[in-house]
């Protein structure tokens, strides 16, 4: 059972960063003096810039990240017409009655106006914990905030599925890569699929089939084209396929070809599928004499394998769905890691989109 969580709260209208910083220090000092078994989490800072009207939705998403909370979250809520800063700081901590160390997490909400964004660094910098990596997430755009915080941002969290079209999302991710490490939630939606494909072709007898792939089809929620492109691009980049732009399949997704070094082609298809949740619905890999499909199912992925001369096998690959809350939490966690395969996949994915219509 989860430990009970208590909170200390400070709030001030028409405040400034020094006052917020002083309040955080004082809350920490007095809480630690009252209970020395409490210690502040010191893993990473998360700065979130949102439209104030949608603050609640983002706060709810952040509350659902499971155990992957940032140590200090600074939520900047932007509201038209506002020219002062109002702030609330909350220090939450677990009950340590059962013994052990209790972890303190801090969150700060600052209501601000659009005019503040160009100088956002001067507001946020005094409040971040300086020795920790800082992650920036701007789910509602706010390019001026991204530019202003470039100097203190180590990691940019974004969702390339969250843009009006996949090309724009992937282009933004590529652009942000120039100044910071990018954690892309669209990429993280592909993780179980990448793991399962890697595992399916891991047995030595099966690995040879990688060089004989003839087709790769991805079924995805219509709004998750970026995820689908990234998965196709991942396979292409790992197997060093020569790729070409994909074209529209008469409004039913994208299709095209990639080529191996021996000029053999692979048929690529990205097909929208009816699915309530964002992300991928299934994949099918076909090779000469072999095909493997993985599709979402209760309790994991349903695998269907057909081997020429050996018939068809079907089984459930176990794994719990992480949900969108879990994917955001995974995004926070990934900010501390480095995935060397995202960059090459992103580059190929951009190439897929070069002339897509």
């Amino acid at each position, binding site marked *: 059972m989860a430990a009970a969580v208590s909170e200390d709260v400070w709030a001030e209208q028409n405040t400034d960063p020094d006052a917020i910083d002083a309040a955080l220090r004082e809350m920490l000092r007095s809480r630690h003096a009252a209970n020395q078994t409490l*210690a*502040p*989490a*010191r*893993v990473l800072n998360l700065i979130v810039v949102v439209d104030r009207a949608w603050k609640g939705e983002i706060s709810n998403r952040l509350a659902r990240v499971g*155990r*992957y*909370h940032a140590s200090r979250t600074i939520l900047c809520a932007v509201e038209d017409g506002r020219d002062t800063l109002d702030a609330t700081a909350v220090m939450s901590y677990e009950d340590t009655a059962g*013994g*052990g*160390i209790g*972890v303190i997490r801090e969150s700060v909400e600052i209501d601000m106006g659009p005019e503040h964004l160009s100088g956002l660094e001067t507001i946020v910098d005094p409040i971040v914990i300086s020795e920790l990596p800082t992650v920036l997430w701007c789910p509602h755009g706010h390019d001026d905030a991204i530019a202003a915080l470039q100097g203190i941002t180590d990691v940019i969290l974004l969702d390339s599925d969250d843009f009006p079209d996949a090309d724009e999302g992937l282009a933004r991710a590529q652009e942000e890569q120039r100044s910071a490490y990018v954690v892309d939630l669209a990429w993280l939606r592909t993780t*179980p699929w*990448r*793991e*399962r*494909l*890697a*595992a*399916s*072709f*891991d*047995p*030595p*007898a099966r*690995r040879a089939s*990688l060089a004989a792939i003839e087709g790769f089809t991805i079924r995805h929620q219509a709004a998750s084209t970026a995820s689908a492109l990234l998965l196709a691009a991942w*396979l292409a980049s*790992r*197997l060093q396929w020569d790729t070409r732009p994909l074209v529209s399949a008469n409004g039913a997704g994208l299709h095209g070809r990639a080529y191996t070094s021996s000029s053999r082609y692979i048929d690529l298809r990205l097909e929208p599928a009816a699915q309530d949740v964002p992300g991928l619905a299934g994949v099918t890999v076909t090779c000469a004499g072999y095909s493997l499909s993985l599709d979402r199912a*209760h*309790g*994991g992925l349903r*695998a269907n*394998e057909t*081997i020429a001369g*050996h*018939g068809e*096998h079907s*089984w*459930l*690959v*176990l*794994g*719990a*769905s992480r949900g969108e809350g879990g994917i955001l939490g995974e995004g*926070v*966690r990934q900010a501390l*890691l480095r*995935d*060397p*395969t*995202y960059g090459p996949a992103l580059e190929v994915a951009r190439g897929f989109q070069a002339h897509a219509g």
Partner: protein
Amino acid sequence: MQSAAVATEVEQDNPLIAGLERLPVRPTALVIFGATGDLAHRKLLPALYNLAHEGALPERFEMVGVARRDQEHNEFRDMAKESIERFSRRRPDESVLKGLIDELRYVPGEFDDDDVYSHLRRVLNEFDQRAGQELNHVFYLSTAPQFFPVIAGKLGAAGLNRARDAETRIVIEKPFGYDLASARQLNAEVLEVFDEPQVFRIDHYLGKETVQNLMALRFANALFEPVWNRNFIDYVQITAAEDIGIGGRAGYYEGAGALRDLVQNHMMQLLALLTMEPPTAFDADRVRDEKLKVLEAIVPPAVSEVPSMAVRAQYGPGTVGGKRVVGYHDEEGVAPDSRTETYAALRLHVSNWRWAGVPFYLRTGKQLARKVTEIAVTLKPVPHLAFKSQGSVGVQPNQIILTVQPDEGVSVSLGAKIPGPTMRIRPVNMEFRYGTSFMSESPEAYERLILDAMRGDATLFTRGDEIEALWAIIDPILTEWHEDTTSPIPQYAAGTAGPPEADALLEGNAKWRRL
């Protein structure tokens, strides 16, 4: 060598695994002998569920429980479900749990009955047919130790120790042997059937994050290694204290005692990791080669030397956590004249260039004042003291404390100036705690170890020569304590820090850390 080769093969040849945190595990059928026992109930089945939840089990995964209890598949499934619901570290997802449980199979019978192995073979063949491929086999021996050689032998006789196109591994729980001779005997019996790379001797301490972090602390930080030697370290204490008695385990504990229960395995592993030389690579044989070297540098005492380097004791009645508790002799199932130790303390020396002259103190016991497992490394005092100690506790030697449980972390004690007009010094702590420095909770040790065994990575398992080296150090102490049937066994009141006799082991300025 095979295990390292398997890992290397996976990492080098599959182009799809780059960047993945979770490496693939080949299709596997896991067979748990003793599947209705306490370990399976509390640890193994919940660990398997958590691996399933995270999508970490192999693509094709099958599990068979083997035990003496006569029951049907469904009864075993119900039992497994209850174990998982009760002991899993996370609330089970119904659909994943159902997916795991529905496929479980059960084979009843005595472990020495050939029919059990014929039945098992049929079930495993059925799995292979269903999968359209030969699955790897992992046989997990979670039984009473007397069955280890029996099961290994029967697996060999049934031809289940090898597969044509797949790997076969055997995981053997502790205790691996009762003394040096029995450990050698068991090694010989197991290795008659399986090759060493197929054998995974488990010590679940090695699966703990904090224990693995010992290597990270030493070999990923330039801060510690320069002082990690006889020139700077005064002494080391390794403590594994428990604040509970033997519970209902008198049958096991009377035959084991504190030395076998914790020192020979867990505590000696901590000592080996603390003192070994840096391996050239973090792979199974390189790490275990270094551990073996340092264990072989611990010269086993002559039997006549044991009284001066080892102390045993038993807990008497006392108060623990405000409750009165009975002494060991009054525990149910304990012989009134039992000489089994519930407390053991040792002083060991590592006779090599790095550690010559540094005493290593190990102590463990039941019904002590507090539950704590830690390593305390005490550095030598500074050579010249410019500060006066008047008005303060003064300058104390630095200590590096690695806590394995309950609060996993590392702390370093430093001398710092007390605020005020005079230069007074007192120790302060710099602390690293897992809970505040990492967002993720540590997985259960068994999750990591089961996965490693299925992957064929033996780094965190004990090799045959290593286990014999561990027993060789302990064996003379066991012999002396066994042969000495007349000396009174020191007693300590339950809820205290142990017997005062243990103080006699300490050399120089050393003193036992407060529990």
